[in-house]
């Protein structure tokens, strides 16, 4: 399911522009979406899921125009959506909640529905907790219920917004693998703050910055954006003001060893490093970060 976005603008009350003339094409397969808080990722996902309306611009998903009711319904029939801020009905059990969402998604045959719900409870390792009320579930368990509901109707388009938030490392890896296996000839749009999740699952990625497209390309090309801009600097003093500190580790010889993304060497003793995806992301998102830090 190819997604075509042209001139997409979303302006909230008070004139705040969450998306500002965004142009983007998302092909079939896993596609990553990166951006700082407020970059417009969640707004974009809500529009693609048909639960928010754009102020201007055009979005088609698999040829269906989201501006029309018929188009939205056609997309939603093949959609799985995991929102960033997931909520559940605390008075239902995990099985009942999934059954309810499955009914809303059109899984009318009780046998098929029960089987599908059972399969997904197994996939997210909640079979033993299936008949417990969601009220007593931890954040991670609720997130797994959210993942299961997104996969219920075998969606052609899966939109997942911060899906690994609240999951422990093992669950995160398990879910990443699940997403990759699921993708195949489907479209999976993965929005996250966790760059490693993108590095491990996506071939292509887009970076949003202040509602605009800051980068679109392969994960490798995003990494290359930081070529010649990544430095290691060991110092006993504070980090240099220019550049973005990626990491800081106590150095064996004393002081701190900083990994810094900067256009020029941040100090006379700075050593160049091979870039990683996180460095590439910081390079293209730097204008926004500078503005946020200002």
């Amino acid at each position: 399911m190819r997604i075509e976005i042209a001139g997409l603008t979303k302006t909230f009350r008070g004139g705040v522009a969450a998306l500002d003339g965004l142009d983007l094409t998302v092909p079939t397969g896993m596609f990553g979406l990166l951006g700082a808080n407020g970059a417009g990722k969640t707004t974009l996902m809500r529009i693609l899921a048909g639960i928010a309306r754009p102020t201007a611009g055009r979005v088609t998903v698999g040829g269906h125009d989201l501006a029309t009711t018929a188009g939205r319904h056609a997309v939603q029939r093949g959609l799985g959506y995991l929102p960033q801020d997931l909520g559940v009905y605390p008075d239902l059990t995990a099985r009942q909640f999934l059954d309810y969402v499955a009914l809303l998604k059109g899984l009318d045959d009780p046998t098929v529905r029960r089987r599908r719900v059972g399969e997904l409870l197994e996939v997210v390792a909640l079979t033993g907790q299936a008949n417990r009320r969601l009220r007593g579930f931890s954040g991670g368990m609720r997130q797994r219920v959210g993942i299961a509901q997104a996969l219920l109707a075998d969606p052609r388009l899966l939109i997942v917004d911060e899906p690994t938030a609240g999951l422990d490392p093992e669950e995160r890896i398990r879910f990443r693998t699940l997403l990759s296996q699921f993708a195949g000839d489907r479209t999976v749009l993965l929005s996250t703050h966790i760059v490693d999740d993108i590095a491990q699952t996506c071939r292509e990625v887009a970076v949003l910055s202040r509602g605009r497209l800051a980068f679109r390309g392969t994960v490798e090309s995003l990494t290359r954006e930081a070529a010649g801009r990544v430095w290691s600097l060991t110092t006993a003093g504070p980090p240099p003001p220019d550049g973005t500190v990626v990491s800081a580790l106590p150095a064996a010889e004393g002081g701190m060893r900083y990994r810094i993304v900067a256009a020029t060497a941040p100090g006379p003793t700075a050593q160049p490093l091979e870039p990683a995806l996180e460095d590439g992301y910081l390079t293209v998102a730097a204008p926004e970060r500078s503005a946020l830090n200002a």
Partner: protein
Amino acid sequence: MIATLLYEFRMQIRKRSVWIVPALTLVLFVLIGGSLLRDLFDPAERPPEARLAVVGLAVQIHALLSIGFGCLLADRLVRDDRLRVAPILDATPASPGARLVGKYLGAGAATAVPIAVAFFGFATAYAGSSGSWSALPWALAVFGAVMVPGLLFVAAFALTVPLIMPAPLFRVLFVGYWLWGNVVTPDLMPTLSRTVLNPLGGYPMAALFDFAGIDGDDQWAGPFPGATLNFLRPEPTPLIAWLSIALLLVLAAAALTGGHLARLAERTRS
């Protein structure tokens, strides 16, 4: 719609407050002097006809328990946003309008179950103790023609008005409205009480069940001498009674439509 109806019913019927609120209301009513409920079982005091006894019972149950009914429903629509479930539901192909109707009927029916249990329970107990088994068909008829339209009216507003004001404020205003628009008599102040817009069902009671109070000297419908808003109190006839029922249902549908449109508008803004 059916899926939402079933699950909303299931969730609401499990709420302890749905049972506790009407139970406490009834207990308090009996304790502070709800004489009719006691008189039903006193051969010397109870109304002479099963019809009168059952309609009188309906008035008391309806007037009392509908207050809790409206208050209990006030959070059902807005809670989808509060619980952050709305995005998941809105991303499904199920029509938002159908889901709203399902929620209305499912949550409304569940909240009405304790009212029905109390009403039919008292009616059955009365029939058993008096030997007037005709009370049961009368109870069914009164429940359908008087109580159900009123409850549908209340449920529609209780569900949708909290979209434009906090649910606790709605509850306070609703209790005030209920007492002003149903309990206050028209000679005291301008009120919707005893009009065709009265969800307590004055017109169906008067015109369809020939009810003028247990003692036969109450006026539940028709022009009230010296009262304002008498243009809303035509002479009670069966036709006007059905019109009154239809008006309540039309107003309920209008409230639901308004709520649906408000949610669509909110979605456009969000």
